């Protein structure tokens, strides 16, 4: 075989490509079907959100945070809100925190549904994708009723949330959760346990726990490597200590620990945990105000802080520097996708071109979150 003369081929994948989940570009150096390396090229969706923050003030930046990660905008809302509250030393009313958690967990469900649906689509199974999108639409309907928008929610405010739960919404939500649980099992039987699907994902893109921490992978990607770490549990924020839920971790049941299948399954199981949290939150929600009194012209004292929230794509770090004026001096968002993109170049070596697609999908990379 060594006498066979092969030639390296450079392929340009993206920015417009069906499976790059937004505008991403990869320069793939391949030898036939096998990749030598895939070099990610990001920045096509850079909207300088961090710079905008310095110009619009604390309240006005809230709708922009939706755009940091439009698939799970509740968490960016929550991150920005909590960071400002910490800077301004504001206490959010209990009901406000519950509303936040409920909205955020619904958003996590929606985000994970999109993630696992597109995962199926990238592997060629179109049906699970539309089924996942169908469920996601139902969640969007609920969120729309809650806050008036389906994607860029702008639901939270500094000091709480903008709207209380509408009348009758809790019953609707509970009914939806009853509907979702069997659908998730059905989804697993249709896609997750399918032999072809397992074969495509198992033993692909293996990340060890040490590597994952070294590359600063977060959220489901980190848990897929067997690290039991969830900000909601380990550095509790908001009202998460009130709820009883598990943190699913990858166990290498389908192949090797830390492969794409583990990351995928962590998301699937996390959805069940979200359902658990939602049920408890909807039952326990106390009455009272949902928004603390925050001046319209919010001027936190000079200082800086970092807030970490567990978004659907993992630990999202908001680093905010205030100089005492009505405008933040510096805002930095450290997102899960940004870290995940950093590891692709290393993981891609020796994989096949078809595996690159599953690798991107299994890391659940969202382009706006990388570029901000």
């Amino acid at each position: 075989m060594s006498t066979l003369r092969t030639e390296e081929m450079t392929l340009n994948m993206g920015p417009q490509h069906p499976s790059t989940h937004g505008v991403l570009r990869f320069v793939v150096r391949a030898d036939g079907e096998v990749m030598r390396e895939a070099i990610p090229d990001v920045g096509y969706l850079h909207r300088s959100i961090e710079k905008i923050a310095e110009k619009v003030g604390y309240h006005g930046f809230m709708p922009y945070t939706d755009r940091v990660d439009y698939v799970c905008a509740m968490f960016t809302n929550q991150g920005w809100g909590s960071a400002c509250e910490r800077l301004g030393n504001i206490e959010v009313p209990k009901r406000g925190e519950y509303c936040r958690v409920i909205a955020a967990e619904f958003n996590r469900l929606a985000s994970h549904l999109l993630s696992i649906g597109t995962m199926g689509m990238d592997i060629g199974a179109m049906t699970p994708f539309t089924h996942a999108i169908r469920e996601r639409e139902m969640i969007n309907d609920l969120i729309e009723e809650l806050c008036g928008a389906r994607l860029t929610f702008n639901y939270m405010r500094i000091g709480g949330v903008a709207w209380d739960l509408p009348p009758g919404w809790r019953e609707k939500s509970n009914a939806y959760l009853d509907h979702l649980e069997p659908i998730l099992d059905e989804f697993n039987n249709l896609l997750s346990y399918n032999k072809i699907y397992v074969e495509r994902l198992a033993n692909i893109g293996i990340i060890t726990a040490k590597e994952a921490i070294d590359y600063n992978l977060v959220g489901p990607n980190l848990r897929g490597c067997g690290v039991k770490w969830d900000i909601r549990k380990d550095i509790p924020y908001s009202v998460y200590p009130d709820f009883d839920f598990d943190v699913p971790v990858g166990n290498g049941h389908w192949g090797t620990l830390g492969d794409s299948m583990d990351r995928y399954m962590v998301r699937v199981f996390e959805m069940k945990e979200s359902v658990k949290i939602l049920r408890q939150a909807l039952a326990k929600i106390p009455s009272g105000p949902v928004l603390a009194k925050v001046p319209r012209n919010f001027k936190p004292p000079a200082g800086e802080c970092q807030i970490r929230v567990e978004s659907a794509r993992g630990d999202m770090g908001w680093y905010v520097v205030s100089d005492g004026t009505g405008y933040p001096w510096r805002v930095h968002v450290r997102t899960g996708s940004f870290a995940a993109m950093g590891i692709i170049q290393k993981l891609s070596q020796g994989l096949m071109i078809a595996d690159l697609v599953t690798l991107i999908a299994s890391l659940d990379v969202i382009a706006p979150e990388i570029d901000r």
Partner: protein
Amino acid sequence: MSGVSDYVQNIKETVSTIFEGMAITASHFMRKPYTVQYPDRMAVRVQDTLPFRYRGILEVDLEICTGCLACERLCPIDCITIVADKDPVTKQLLLSQFDIDIAKCMYCGLCSEPCPTGSIHHTTEFEGADYSLESLIRRFVKDPVIAYKPKKGPETDQRIAPILNRGMAYLDQWAIPGSDAEAKAAADKAAAETAAPGEPS
């Protein structure tokens, strides 16, 4: 021997999982499609089915606009332009321009939140496609009008009262510190039922 058993196991798993998958897809032949056949094949217009809080294209009720400029100040992208001057003669606030650049608007809802009368509000209308940027500007002031002045007691003007009621009802949706919308709505509903049985509230 493990090689052989793996071989057989692989075939078995493949067949059984595909069997399950096919059963699920077959069951979908008997389920109702979820598609909404927007825009023509719908029993009700989509706009009428959207929830009250839906943030569609902005609308201003000029009759109850106080000219306080709160919305203009809070808009993070400055898509609202208001010109309000004191009339030198009558000392009344005169609104001569109220433009909203819908092309720029990001439907965040921050402007309708501080409005004291609920004058600026989102509608459930969302179909805004047009041919030019200019036609996407909503101009609310044709001729300069006098800004609304909130009265101490209830509104007496028959023309303005319903508009103001709608505006205040819209504002009630927002979380005002100390309120509990869900409980309040339930109480309201109960009150409405006892007051006027049989009448839709």
